[in-house]
């Protein structure tokens, strides 16, 4: 059938995350941004919502959601509405758990997955992006070379979230021209966590460069064993996650601008009563809903086991453009006030621009 109503369970999850976003994330997000510090208490609470565990099958200690990606999209929208930096932080463990779930060997799944249902936030991270303009997830500059029973990793990574405290890294590297992923423990010789990066937005989330100088890992550390990974499949799960977060961010900006426009009076009446403002709001609402449905469809196809690259790519690209458009208009609707950091819309504009860059930085 064609149907647009989440199940009761999904609605319940979305409602729970929505409440968390409103009560916990929204009360701290501006301060977190200004101080460039994660409010760990909130991140831990977000982790304890158990969203990742819900997506992991029962065999590996999770709850085994029947539509994990659709549910993930619903939850990610709410987190994205709350705050992008905090949302990404809450979702970081998924950057390791989900590739293991989708591409790992049976042994890797049994070894690693159960810990993602623990109450404590897992100290793990993943490194895909590289610090260069020509970055291409399918043609990485970081290399992995097989030497006997080991792989040797060399190269540089960027945008590695929470790397300073991570104990396990999933590092993507090109092996014979194919993107593969390797599980690397903290303290591996040659692995250096660099300086904290300074980004345009999502400042509360600390990200780092990573240097790999001949880092040796056992052959068993290669994700998926001999079969390796299909990077595109993993990227599809990232694309829908980013699209869903973008929908949430945009919805937040739209709702804020709408309320503002109804209350701000100019020339004797609320600015929302002028068509140029009202039409902007109408278009924002339409575009948000269009991307939301495109995201759901892409997520649904992934849950059906379809390849769905086209749908995932298009949903994400459209989401990038949409989120930027919506956030920009939100600033415009607030006028000069929109430019001031005491209002949230300038932050949403900076964060929205990030979606184009955040390959692999969120996954559902």
């Amino acid at each position: 059938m064609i149907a647009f109503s989440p199940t009761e369970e999904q609605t319940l999850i979305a409602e729970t995350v929505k409440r968390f976003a409103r009560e916990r994330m929204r009360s701290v997000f501006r301060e977190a941004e200004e101080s460039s510090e994660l409010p760990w208490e909130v991140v831990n609470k977000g982790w304890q919502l158990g969203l990742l565990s819900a997506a992991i099958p029962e065999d590996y200690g999770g709850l085994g959601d029947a539509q994990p990606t659709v549910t993930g999209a619903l939850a990610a929208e709410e987190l994205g509405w709350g705050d992008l930096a905090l949302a990404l932080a809450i979702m970081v463990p998924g950057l390791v758990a989900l590739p293991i779930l989708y591409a790992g060997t049976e042994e890797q799944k049994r070894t690693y997955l159960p810990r993602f249902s623990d109450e404590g936030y897992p100290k793990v991270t993943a490194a895909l992006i590289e610090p260069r303009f020509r970055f291409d997830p399918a043609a990485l500059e970081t290399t992995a070379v097989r030497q006997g029973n080991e792989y040797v990793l060399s190269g540089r990574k960027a945008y590695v979230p929470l790397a300073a405290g991570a104990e396990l890294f999933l590092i993507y590297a090109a092996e014979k021209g194919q993107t593969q992923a390797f599980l690397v423990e903290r303290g591996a010789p040659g692995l250096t966590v660099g300086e904290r990066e300074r980004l345009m937005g999502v400042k509360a989330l600390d990200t780092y460069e990573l240097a790999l100088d001949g880092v040796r890992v056992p052959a068993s550390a290669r994700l998926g064993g001999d079969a390796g990974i299909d990077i595109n499949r993993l990227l599809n799960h990232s694309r829908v996650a980013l699209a869903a977060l973008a929908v949430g961010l945009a919805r937040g900006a739209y709702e804020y601008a709408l309320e503002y426009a109804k209350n701000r009076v100019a020339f004797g009446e609320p600015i929302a009563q002028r068509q140029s403002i009202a039409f902007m709001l109408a278009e924002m609402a339409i575009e948000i809903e269009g991307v939301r449905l495109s995201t759901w469809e892409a997520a649904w196809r992934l849950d059906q086991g379809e390849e769905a690259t086209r749908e995932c790519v298009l949903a994400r690209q459209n989401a990038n453009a949409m989120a930027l458009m919506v956030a920009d208009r939100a600033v415009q609707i607030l006028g000069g006030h929109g430019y001031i950091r005491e209002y949230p819309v300038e932050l949403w504009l900076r964060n929205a621009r990030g979606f184009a860059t955040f390959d692999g930085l969120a996954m559902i």
Partner: protein
Amino acid sequence: MPIEFKTPGAIQQVVSMAQMVAEQVMRPKAAYYDEHEHEIPWEYINMMWPIVSQSPLLGADDSRNGHGEAERKRSPITNVRLIHIVEMLSWGDAGQYLCTPGGNLGAAAIAAVGTPEQKRRFLSRFQGEKPAWGAMAMTEPQAGSDTSAIKTTAVRDGDFWVLNGEKIFCTGGRLALEESNGLVVVWATVDPKAGRAGMKPFVVEAGTPGVTVTKLEPKLGIRASDTASILLQDARIPFDHILGSPEVISDTGGEKGFKGAMKTFDATRPIVAASALGIARATIEYVKHLLNQEGITIRYGAPLHQLSAVELEVMDMEAQHRAAWLLTQKAAWMMDMGLNNNLEASMCKVKAGDAVTRITQKAVEILGPLGYSRAHPVEKWMRDAKINDIFEGTGQINRLIVARRILGYTSRELK
């Protein structure tokens, strides 16, 4: 029902039938009817009549059981099914699609506000031996978006109404009045001072003295479809041809008067959106086909710095098309579920009207010398596309509706 995007088998079946008609009957003649404006596409009509008279696309199924129970008896996929068919027929040729015999907008209005007896009486002709058309005439020279400005009058004279005025831009007006035993639902005012409360729909049947088609508009596109001017000169119609109540009462709360009829837009806007998106899909497929022949395939997921401008354009076309089609499906699905879809109907109409306009205009550009040439269909699709941003409420009017809904404003608060 969980979130799902699988077209049901029953819909796939009718869609593949529609596809056969589109490929074998409509496509081969699309250019011909574009170049021979106002010729009637009888092959298509005669092909469709046995199908639609058995299983009407819109509205007319209400005539079978005049108990007002039709809503309940409708299968829960009626509207979703309909938009799929319309999309496919418009993929074939939007001009011919608009000549599809049946009650069309006229029947939609009758179904929305007629009594069970009126539905039976007026709609049975759409199940007869010969093709018949219904049409709807609201627009007048001085009244388009502002429907409350209509001047056509209806004056009671015993058991009759006497109608006087001029209607323009009536889609299928000629097919309804001159080419079949059809009908036109004509909007007129019974009290010019009463504004919207005085506006009433009247059923005017083919052959009514004093009713003449005075002009067929020459158009940018959809040239197979007639856009008729209708002159009403002391046209006498039986008293019980008024739909809904003859009383001039303000419409608060009532679903039967002007507001009730405006509700038909909730059903028809997704249909217009679907038609737009059939043209959009045809265009995207054609562009991709020609690009493929030149060895250009779209590399989904390749990084931005590797993608060509053309690849990015095509991806954007596809993304906008998809978003619009999902919005349209949602609006139709909500109707099937018995939910109020007033907001969603206007949302999908705005998005589809925008998307098809941009996609087709971009396609002409991308294909360069082939795009602008009448030897290829893309320039025609661009011309056909534009009407979807205009009729059934312009893009601006539908934005107004969306804006009022999201802001909680009345039409007085947001003009």
